[in-house]
């Protein structure tokens, strides 16, 4: 048994060492896998804020993931084809600058989360799960049947977008970008969790009545958390699109929402590094089990079932001592 903090440090060390090793050994695909894990982790960190801290079981976070992806796809495809995004009333050009794309992705998915959250948060429990799922599906079908940006075919962006001073096509440099963003978001979310906002959010999760009776507007509190959560997942979506240089409606599918939830459960709900560990383990399972058998989903299902039924607290919960919440 180790303290959770040390465990987190070890996870971070691995996220540095494994890609470094891959560079030395010239195994770029390992870096690609690590990048994928880091991006999924980021999406999971976003959902974990709503789900873990806030107790808001969103089964539709694919909507923000996809929104981030399409923010990248649309901006970059316009830049690629030299067609302005809109000309009336003023000209907006596409762009292939990552920071601009991130900003747009964050704002767009935050707005979407504001809209969906404002409606969904009127419900609770299973209704909330289902209504968020339904909103996700709504966007899935919309992107499939809307022809402007490729419909089900999606959009291919032939070159990765640019980041000033870096060669983003070099796997390790792109990994670096994603990793630094993950670190920044983890730092921010950690501060957030300890802030009055985080205290209230988790407090309202533990006992809504109590939060209300000390004068906290729980609806607004949750809505803000939901928006931040969606924005983070949206940023992950933009990075994911850049990793694949491709976006498609699949990013909106309910399977993606389920996967993001799986990362959190695997790693440990409401734990800062839960989604990070969960995403990394999921990617490894996918990679190695996929090599084992054509029917590898059976094994994945069994493992998942086992974790849910018997390993409360996920992998981090299993490996670390119980630490008091908000210690310090």
């Amino acid at each position, binding site marked *: 048994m180790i303290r959770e903090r040390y465990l987190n440090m070890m996870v971070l060390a691995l996220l540095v060492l494994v890609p470094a090793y891959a560079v030395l050994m010239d195994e770029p695909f390992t870096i690609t896998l690590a990048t994928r894990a880091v991006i999924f982790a980021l999406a999971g960190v976003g959902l974990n804020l709503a789900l873990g801290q806030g107790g808001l079981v969103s089964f539709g976070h694919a909507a923000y993931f996809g929104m981030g992806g399409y923010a990248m796809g649309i901006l970059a495809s316009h830049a690629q084809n030299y067609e302005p995004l809109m000309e009336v009333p003023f000209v907006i050009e596409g762009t292939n600058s990552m920071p601009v794309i991130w900003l747009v992705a964050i704002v767009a998915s935050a707005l979407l989360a504001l809209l969906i959250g404002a409606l969904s948060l009127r419900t609770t429990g299973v209704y909330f799960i289902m209504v968020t799922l339904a909103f996700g599906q709504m966007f899935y079908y919309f992107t499939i049947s809307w022809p402007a940006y490729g419909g089900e075919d999606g959009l291919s962006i032939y070159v990765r977008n640019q980041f000033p001073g870096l060669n983003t096509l070099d796997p390790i440099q792109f990994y670096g970008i994603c990793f630094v963003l993950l670190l920044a978001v983890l730092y921010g979310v950690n501060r*957030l969790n300890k802030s*009055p906002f985080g*205290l209230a959010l988790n407090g309202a999760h*533990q*006992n809504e009545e109590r939060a209300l*009776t*000390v004068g906290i507007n729980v609806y607004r509190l949750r809505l803000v958390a939901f928006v931040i959560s969606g924005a983070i997942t949206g940023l992950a979506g933009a990075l994911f699109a850049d990793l694949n240089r491709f976006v498609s409606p699949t990013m909106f599918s309910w399977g993606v929402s389920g996967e993001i939830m799986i990362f959190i459960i695997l790693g440990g709900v409401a734990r800062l590094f839960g989604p990070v560990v969960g995403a990394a383990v999921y990617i490894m399972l996918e990679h190695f089990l996929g090599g084992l058998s054509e029917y590898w989903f059976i094994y994945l299902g069994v493992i998942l079932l086992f974790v849910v039924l018997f390993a409360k607290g996920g992998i981090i919960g299993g490996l670390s001592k119980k630490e008091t*919440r*908000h210690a310090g």
Partner: protein
Amino acid sequence: MPDSILSVRNIEKSFGALKASDGISLDLVAGEIHALIGPNGAGKSTLIKQIAGGLKPDSGSVAFMGRDVTAKSTAQRARLGLGRTFQISALAMQYSVLENAVLGAVGQSGSVFQFFRPAMKDPALLARARRALDRVGLQDHEDIITSELSHGQRRQLEVAVALTLEPKAFLMDEPMAGMGAEGSRELTTFLQELKHEAPILLVEHDMDAVFACADRISVLVYGQIIATGSVDEIRSNPQVRVAYLGEEEPV
């Protein structure tokens, strides 16, 4: 009433055919403990919910500190200074005692949308929380996880969290429930002190406790208040004896 802190006027609330509140009027005046009693199913919790804000009356009004708060939410009423404790402890069970108290302070200070500064290192929040814990005698239990507290301690913590709001009035739902005789006595003494800061509307099952500490008592039966008065008046009210204390009507 002139110095009424909380006044309920002609509240009506129906669930289908059931009339849970049937024209209830009630006042809580400064410095008093006003107990609300009534048999099970009389509509006590429905009334409390309407006063606290969880439920909107079909008609009638609730005024608090001279303002009509009928349309205000629970959170808004709390921010105006309506402190509340629950029959079944409503606390963040995984938080420490101090964290629960700080949660109250966060709500009171309106600092909910501060995202960056750690709440548990904020001197103002901590000071307010610790002051409240001191009042109820939990100052030595700050770091204990709430779920590990005894029943009585949870009650104390409930009161402490309510105190962080510096309320203008308290709404207490069966605070004595599950306390031993000793605990009840201590709490009674404490409430007697507290009422001078802010009057207390008390819903209580334990008749002895009510008679021991209440200044006034209202009796709720079938959604109506059948009597309001001092302890002695209520004790001797024949209607109350029949409807509530279950005595046969003298022939």
